[in-house]
């Protein structure tokens, strides 16, 4: 088999039909001569997800366009369990890819509502034709969208793993058969708490394994739920995964210095700036009350100096409040070191970071209120450089016994 596209599902009947059709069109249009298969790994859907996948046929595609299949396009749907589990879905897809000896594979999330056939081409082509091992997506975003990624996950991953990969947490990505086998061997999904953040573990494993990385611009990403993911689960999936990866990869990140750019297909960033409604005051209040209420918890996580500074800014009036880049980076590094040392329960450490993140988001929103896309990018770049500059601070914390 040349290409494999995995579609992990769980109660996605509303969107999976269009997703599978877009994949089919993409495969037939851009890879007409290749042997391809679509693998749907389902986590025990109670709606008609699997029936919708099975019902999507080539005839529908042909009716809607002038595309003709030169080869049989296989579509397999399988149930891996009664409950959704991202790591099992990915493992099922990887096992299928290895069994079929697929040269390039892509994972596509049915949660995205605007997948186009071009996404399939942009994800698979660099892996299939240009020998890349992992292709992660780049999306057109609003300047205030994906703030956890831009304020913590991307800058910290970039500073520590020395790769300028913009979306380390990607639900759509493509990988080579070689990387797939490596992931199966390494059992990356077992290196953390219950398979949380599997997608990010793939990226981190590829970075740590020295694989050939690239990123590709897909366009605007729309979610069924409008993208309003809860903060704490999102932090577990991304920040928790990043923190937990630091211990096994210490040799790598402690010796990395200069960050490398990642080959990019299409625009590296595309920010839209139309006005949206954001309740900044609520973020400010949540930060203030969080710092006050969590004082005993923060005392065991943050260094005395960082804690004093955080408590200091929490007393500032709303207009004077600023969470500086340097203080934020020190906060993040204190949390990472405390996570490594397990000063308290690790999940509690991640949860305790949420109110402080809200303070940083408040500052980000204020600083970039009237900023253009380029100005926002310049701000993010400054934060990235602060993360890189203060890396020795993390190393000092890491090497301190208590």
């Amino acid at each position, binding site marked *: 088999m040349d290409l494999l596209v995995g579609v992990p599902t769980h109660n996605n009947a509303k969107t999976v039909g269009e997703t599978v059709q877009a994949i089919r069109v993409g495969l037939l249009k851009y890879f007409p001569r290749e042997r391809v298969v679509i693998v749907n790994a389902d986590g025990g859907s109670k709606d008609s997800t699997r029936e919708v996948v099975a019902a999507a046929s080539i005839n529908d595609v042909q009716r809607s366009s002038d595309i003709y299949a030169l080869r049989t396009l296989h579509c397999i749907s399988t149930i891996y369990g009664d409950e959704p589990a991202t790591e099992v879905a990915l493992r099922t897809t990887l096992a299928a890819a290895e069994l079929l000896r697929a040269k390039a594979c892509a994972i596509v999330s049915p949660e995205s509502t605007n997948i186009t056939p071009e996404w399939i081409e942009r994800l698979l082509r660099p892996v299939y034709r240009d020998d890349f091992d992992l292709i992660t997506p780049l999306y057109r975003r*609003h300047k*205030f*969208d*994906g*703030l*956890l*990624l831009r304020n913590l996950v991307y800058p910290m991953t970039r500073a520590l793993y020395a790769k300028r990969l913009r979306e380390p*947490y990607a639900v759509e990505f493509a990988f080579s058969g070689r990387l797939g086998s490596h992931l199966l061997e390494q059992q990356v999904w077992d290196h953390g708490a219950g398979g949380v953040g599997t997608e990010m573990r793939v990226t981190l494993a590829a970075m740590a394994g020295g694989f050939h990385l690239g990123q590709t611009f897909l366009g605007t990403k729309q*979610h069924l739920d*409008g*993208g*309003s*993911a809860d*903060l*704490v689960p*999102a*932090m577990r*999936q*991304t920040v928790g995964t990043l923190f937990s990866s630091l211990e096994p990869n210490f040799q790598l990140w402690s010796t990395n210095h200069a960050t490398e750019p990642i080959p990019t297909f299409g625009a590296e960033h595309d920010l839209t700036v139309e006005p*949206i*409604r*954001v*309740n900044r005051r*609520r973020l400010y209040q*949540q930060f203030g*009350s*969080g710092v006050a*209420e*969590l004082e005993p*918890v923060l005392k*065991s996580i943050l260094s005395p100096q960082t804690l004093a500074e955080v408590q200091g800014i929490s007393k500032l009036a709303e207009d004077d409040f600023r969470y500086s880049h340097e203080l934020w980076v020190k906060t993040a590094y204190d949390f990472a070191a405390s996570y490594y040392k397990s*000063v*308290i*329960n690790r999940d*509690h450490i991640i*949860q*305790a970071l*949420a*109110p402080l993140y809200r303070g940083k*988001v408040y500052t980000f929103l204020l600083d970039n209120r009237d900023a253009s896309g380029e100005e926002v990018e310049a701000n993010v770049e400054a934060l990235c450089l602060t993360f890189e500059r203060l890396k020795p601070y993390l190393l000092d914390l890491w090497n301190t016994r208590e």
Partner: protein
Amino acid sequence: MWEMIVGELDHAMQELARNFAHLLPRLLATLIIALLGWVIAYALKVVVRGILRIAKFDKLSDNAGATQILNKLALPSSSELLSRVVFWMAWMGFILLGVEVLEIVGLHEYISRFFLYLPRLFVALFIVFFGLVAASFFSRAALLAAVNADSPSPGLLATLIRTIIVIFAVTMAFDQLGLAERTILIAFAIAFGALMLGLAIAFGMGGRDLARQFLERRFLKEKEDQKHDELSPL
């Protein structure tokens, strides 16, 4: 008459000397056992302290909140305190063994009771310690969840959870020690029942409107706010 007195005195002295001669080796044995016991107990203390330090017991104690209580009572660290308890228990055991050698009438039963009591004491200490660990963990979990959910009075909720678990653990420990079992049990039942009834009445009657507002805010308004906020972390 005088000879009788001297004879009795002589007999008494001989009896005393005989008793002393009979007691002296036992006393020496008791002293040797106590001395040997001290050495063994001290060695045990050092070993226990070392194991606890390797196991980072003080850190566990910190997390459980036990260190704060010990500091307030001007007591040493948890590992030091536990190793001292082990030392005194072991040495007391040896001393009692030594005393038993003296064959003092009636003491044997008390010594047996002491040794039978020791396991219960350890179980009670174990229950209290892990009660404190559980109280710390669950109160912190509740505090974090309440803070992140923007619930009112997260500190109060965490304190309430901690208090309930600590009271529960102490009650179990007292029950294990067999100290005023009925009184403790009844006091616990009354206190716990009163607390729950109070909460039920407060929420059911007094805070009916507040509860409705809270639920509305929690499940309706917040979701609405979130929709309007349009901020996605990922």
